[in-house]
């Protein structure tokens, strides 16, 4: 068991979240978007578990479990959508999937 402060853990979590978010904004293809999304969710999980460790009760980990469920569903559906996008447009460039606009 490593004794480490919550601030360090939070810093790690937020840094990873920023990297994920930055990637999400910068990358141009749909799958990288999903991967960056996974990164962000993972960062959130780190925060959950570290707070659960700080307060020493298991709710954090339970929430971690629910986040994982959501992530799994989200990835599955996201990939299905990417698949359809690919079938439709023969490419998965995000810039070109902008039909749904004002």
């Amino acid at each position, binding site marked *: 068991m490593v004794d480490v*402060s919550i601030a360090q853990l939070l810093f790690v979590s937020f840094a990873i979240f920023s990297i994920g978010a930055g990637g999400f904004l910068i990358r141009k293809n749909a799958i990288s978007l999903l991967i960056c999304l996974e990164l962000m969710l993972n960062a959130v999980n780190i925060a959950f578990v570290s707070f659960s460790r700080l307060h*020493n009760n298991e709710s954090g980990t339970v929430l971690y479990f629910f986040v994982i469920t959501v*992530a799994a569903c989200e*990835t599955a559906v996201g990939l299905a959508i990417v698949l359809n996008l690919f079938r439709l447009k023969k490419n*998965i460039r995000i810039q070109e999937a902008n039909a749904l606009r004002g």
Partner: protein
Amino acid sequence: MMEFAFYLVAGLMLLSAGLVAFRPKPIESALWLILHFFLTSTLYVFIGADFVAVVQLLVYAGAIVVLITFVILLLNLNPQEISGGESIRWTSTVLFLCSLGAVLFCLHISTPSLLEKMPAPGSSFGSIEAFSRTMIQNYSWSFEVAGFLLLLALIGVGLLAYRRPSTRDHSNIENKSEAA
């Protein structure tokens, strides 16, 4: 020594996250993601949450990234199909930097209590019994909803991915060249 191990793992995690986000080829970022998840589970072990570490591996590394890798491999995209068009680079970099700065600033002047070392957890922290007892007792209703959500996702994906035999086109198989 353990301190050093924590910093090492944290540094590697950041590095792998950076590589995941900014490597051009999706397959590479997927593999780096697997490494990242391994490092994350070691971080959890450091914190003492063993069950979470294993579940992380089992679910994330073992299932979700497999799915992603599968799609990347099967779609077998060639470069111009993936990236193209100008993306909003400069705004994101600016945003990213300033947010990072904001966080550091917050952590820096945050209350001293945050900076202290965390007390050692209770003996049963991180074990399956503690986890399952909390979940089933306090969060049973959300547990059911999570199950239902998975069912929905299942059906959704089924519907989305289903292609009527007539519409299946086999064009994307022949003209594949150098893959991602």
